[in-house]
């Protein structure tokens, strides 16, 4: 029983074990304390008899353990423990706040008597269905096929789709081990990351401008005069950044911080917020409630017209000379200024630019002007406002990713809102980060592997790690079809059984005959896992020591406090097993060159993997002439055992312009353990043997390009891509999609939380927000089952009627499993400059197929985007 029927939780005793961890889920990376104690050894109510140090004879308002924060775990030795995973009041990120995601981590631990019981526990190999296998056999089969294909067909016969992030399903240990295997050992270019058909970043335009995308501190949201939220919904998706840092500013309670940051400047009594979204989100409602309508500007933009909007705002800024001319003169590539001015229509009358913009974007021209004023018009006293620019998937996954991002970041450059307190231009982020990999052997924009696979080309082995392309790929239905159809040949080959050597040979023959060998490494039986030929069960956060950074690059160690289920192992260990198998095979053949390529995996612990990665970071920094402060990477001695020999010297030279924003030089697990939940903001510098973090970027006026200058990238309004236009001609509704606060990413774990399953009728259905006028036309009420279909697929959804969406522009939950996969409806279009898909924009028809399912009888359908 998880929820309302639970009327007590056990009290952690004073001698409970205590651990630190960041939240598993979103980019904010809230700090949590974990208490672990044996079943039946509960603490007492007196302050000295419980681990919270709280007098529990009174209501405990400071460190309450809700029933969803509590779980029961069993260690490998069979002993059972209570665990409580409680938000940390002393963590500067969240100050004790939790969201519905992080606050329910107690429900997420593996236990035999809960919905998490189906965690993957042992490797499997297909033999008339998936059969449990030994690690030796699974490693020998995958290692054997990998080596055979590498020898015969070269590195690009091995494909990988893998997470590139921090938090659950990631971390520096994960990205390093997997990156080392596929980029430095296998050396494949057939790689794409968890949510897109490329390995390159989502805001490549920003990076090209010299502005790495995580350049701010969360404190900047407390200091800014204006916060711009573009294509993001932080109430729901970056919850405690919003509530612990933005909302206090909007309410006027951070004036002290503003005065301290800008002595002599009269700050606004309350911060202002501009929200740009096709949908009137809960963020708009919350900001209006906190700040008053007069301090919130909501621009309900027509999807796909963002470039026009931002160029028009820039045109207004230039018209009134609100740009920061001295910043542009000193810090911006001079040659880029003229073409940028042209692109925003400086050679045309501002009035005509605005009239066009109003027509294209659907945003009233007065609001465009007001946005320009809030962003850049000097305030009383003559000071320019400090404006903090944020964006996320609504910007990233629109049409023509590169231009959309450029048009927005240009505005931050134009107004000089970079490198100062309360300013910056940063993505808000989805998952946490933690990227350290050898350089990818291919070229930008990367290889659209999913498309090649659908065409019967591409890799012969596809290794899917910690992600699920059936839910998160453009035209995702084709991924499922490929895995099923091309995978069948390999299943047939494996059904014949035989020794591992025989099976390796049969698999190789079947993939040479057009089959696809699918290897999955995951924690739950996702759809990909269900279709994979070999499955490696992975350990996950809580079950290993791992490191991640949040949206302000705050690096923490997330401690291990429980064992993984069955024989599941950390991903780095799985990579090492396979690499060592391949290395040994080459050694036996006397092929020393290849044996050397697969060497360097003799890590003994999580900390070893981190050290190996940290050394690479330090080496990249010390060989980079632009980073003065890092000339002495051995200024401090890192602790712990040395890692294996890393093939660093054989890697291609770094392509990073001047610094790596996720650099982990000078860090190790032990040092991070001592820093607890506040950690340190990377990159870390050392002076006089003392380490210090980087609060925000560009404070020295240096941007991440070889000459230290930022650059404008002119952006032009793209046409609707042909694939999307074709759907528009045939189908009536523009389908927007995105996230919902209760649901984390693909829902792989969320649906196993009773509070989530119950909220959504136990169906793993997505919902579809529909304007009341569309609902009337379609004869639909909230709760009805809908069929949503276009040329790519037919899927289903549950209707949720709300005027937060415009007529004709329903919004569907993205990346959800099974019954309703919005990704099925998305076209295969990607921005040719970046390979980033246009997930946010497709067209489909909608029909009502049935009334509200009985499992929804108890489910509320009150408005998700309103507070009234």
């Amino acid at each position, binding site marked *: 029983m998880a929820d309302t029927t639970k009327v007590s939780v056990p009290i952690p005793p004073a001698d409970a074990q205590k651990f630190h961890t960041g939240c598993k889920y979103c980019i904010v990376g809230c700090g949590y304390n974990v208490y672990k104690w044996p079943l039946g050894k509960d603490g007492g109510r007196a302050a000295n008899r419980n681990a919270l140090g709280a007098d529990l*004879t009174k*209501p405990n*308002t400071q460190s309450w353990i809700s029933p969803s924060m509590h779980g029961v775990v069993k260690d490998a030795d069979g002993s059972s423990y209570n665990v409580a995973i409680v938000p940390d009041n002393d963590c500067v990120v969240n100050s004790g706040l939790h969201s519905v995601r992080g606050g329910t981590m107690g429900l997420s631990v593996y236990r035999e008597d809960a919905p998490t019981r189906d965690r993957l526990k042992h490797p499997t190999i297909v033999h008339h269905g998936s059969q449990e296998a030994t690690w030796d056999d699974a490693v020998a089969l995958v290692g054997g096929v990998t080596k055979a294909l590498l020898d015969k067909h070269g590195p690009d016969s091995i494909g990988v789709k893998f997470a590139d992030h921090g938090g659950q399903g990631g971390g520096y240990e994960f990205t390093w081990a997997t990156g080392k295997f596929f980029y430095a050992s296998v050396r494949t270019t057939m790689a794409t990351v968890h949510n897109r058909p490329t390995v390159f970043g989502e805001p490549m335009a920003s990076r090209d401008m010299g502005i790495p995308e995580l350049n701010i501190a969360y404190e900047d949201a407390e200091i800014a005069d204006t916060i711009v939220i573009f294509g993001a919904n932080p109430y729901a998706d970056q919850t405690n950044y919003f509530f612990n840092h933005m909302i206090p500013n909007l309410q006027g309670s951070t004036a002290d911080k503003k005065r301290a940051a800008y002595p002599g400047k009269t700050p606004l009594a309350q911060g202002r917020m501009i929200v740009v979204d096709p949908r009137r989100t809960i963020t708009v409602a919350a900001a209006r409630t906190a700040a008053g309508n007069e301090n919130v500007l909501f621009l309900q933009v027509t999807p796909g017209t963002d470039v026009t909007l931002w160029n028009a705002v820039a045109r207004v800024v230039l018209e009134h000379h609100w740009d920061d001319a001295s910043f542009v003169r000193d810090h911006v590539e001079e040659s880029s200024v003229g073409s940028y001015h042209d692109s925003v229509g400086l050679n045309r009358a501002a009035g005509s630019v605005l009239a066009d913009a109003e027509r294209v974007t659907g945003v009233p021209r007065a609001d465009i002007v007001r946005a320009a004023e809030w962003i850049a018009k000097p305030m009383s006293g003559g000071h320019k406002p400090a404006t903090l620019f944020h964006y996320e998937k609504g910007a990233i996954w629109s049409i023509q990713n590169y231009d959309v991002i450029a048009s927005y970041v240009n505005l931050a450059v134009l107004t000089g809102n970079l490198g100062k307190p309360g300013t910056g231009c940063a993505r808000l982020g989805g998952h946490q980060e933690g990227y350290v990999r050898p350089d990818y052997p291919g070229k930008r924009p990367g290889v659209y592997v999913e498309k090649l696979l659908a065409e019967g080309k591409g890799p012969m082995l596809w290794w899917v790690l910690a992600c699920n392309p059936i839910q998160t790929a453009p035209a995702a239905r084709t991924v499922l079809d490929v895995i099923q159809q091309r995978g069948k040949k390999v299943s047939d080959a494996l059904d014949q059984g035989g020794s591992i050597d025989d099976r390796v040979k049969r698999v190789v023959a079947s993939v040479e005959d057009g089959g696809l060998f699918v290897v999955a490494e995951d924690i739950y039986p996702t759809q990909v896992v269900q279709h994979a030929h070999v499955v490696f069960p992975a350990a996950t956060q809580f079950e290993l020591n791992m490191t991640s950074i949040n949206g302000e690059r705050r690096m923490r160690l997330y401690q291990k406090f429980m064992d993984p289920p069955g024989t599941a192992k950390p991903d780095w260990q799985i990579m090492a097993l396979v690499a060592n198998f391949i290395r040994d095979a080459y050694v036996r053949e006397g092929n020393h060159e290849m044996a050397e390529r697969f060497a360097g995996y003799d890590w003994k612990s999580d900390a070893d993997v981190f050290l190996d990665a940290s050394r690479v970071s330090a080496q990249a920094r010390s060989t980079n002439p632009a980073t003065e402060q890092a000339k002495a990477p051995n200024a401090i001695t890192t602790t712990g055992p040395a890692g294996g020999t890393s093939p660093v010297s054989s890697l291609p030279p770094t392509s990073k312009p001047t610094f790596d924003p996720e650099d982990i030089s000078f860090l190790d697990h032990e040092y991070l353990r001592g820093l607890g939940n506040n950690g340190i903001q990377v990159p870390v510098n050392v002076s006089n043997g003392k380490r210090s973090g980087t609060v925000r970027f560009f404070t020295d006026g240096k941007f991440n390009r070889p000459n230290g200058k930022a650059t404008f990238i002119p952006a032009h309004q793209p046409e609707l891509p042909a694939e999307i236009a074709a759907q528009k001609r045939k189908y009536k509704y523009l389908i927007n999609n995105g996230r919902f606060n209760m649901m984390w990413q693909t829902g792989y774990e969320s649906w196993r939380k009773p*509070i989530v399953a*119950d909220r959504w009728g136990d169906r793993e259905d997505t919902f579809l927000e529909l304007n009341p006028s569309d609902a009337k036309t379609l004869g639909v009420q909230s709760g009805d089952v809908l069929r949503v279909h276009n040329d790519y697929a037919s899927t289903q959804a549950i209707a949720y009627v709300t005027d937060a969406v415009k007529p004709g522009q329903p919004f569907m939950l993205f990346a959800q499993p099974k019954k309703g996969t919005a990704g099925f409806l998305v076209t295969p279009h990607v921005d040719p400059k970046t390979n980033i898909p246009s997930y946010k924009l497709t067209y489909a028809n909608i029909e009502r197929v049935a009334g509200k399912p009985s499992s929804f009888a108890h489910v509320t359908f*009150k408005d998700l985007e309103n507070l009234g």
Partner: protein
Amino acid sequence: MAVSRLRFLSASGAATASLVAGAAQTPTIAEGATALPRVAVGKAKAFQVGKPVAFHYPDAQAPALAVKIGHKVDGGVGPEGDIVAYSQLCVHRGCPVSYNAGARTFVCPCHYSVYDPERSGQLVIGHATTNLPRITLAYDPGSDEIRATGVQGLIFGRFDNGKLS
């Protein structure tokens, strides 16, 4: 999966069943939890639609709100089966929720969690990790008295609803 986990539980062994109009409710006491008192909330006829009535349950440190929704709802009591009650303490960080009569929701002023009193206190949107704890009610038609009889869910700040001292 957890089909009935969070739903309103129907009565079991209800001593008060014969007194109750509509569905009968008794406190749901999980094993090991403390039995809770019966506390008078008020006369049903004194309730006005949309005007919440404040009371405390199960003790003086536990503010609660009873509200007449205006139509029969799951778990509602009284002549119209439309009176329900919930802990007033938001199960996010304990701020007092207020009743929004227009939307028939409880809204928290601190971080804007929204709960639905027509659906067992279900979280509409927000940060709570459980539903808003429901105070179960019993109605005696003879005296028109509404009494609080128990709590479904754990009240914010507590380890056991009934054991503070």
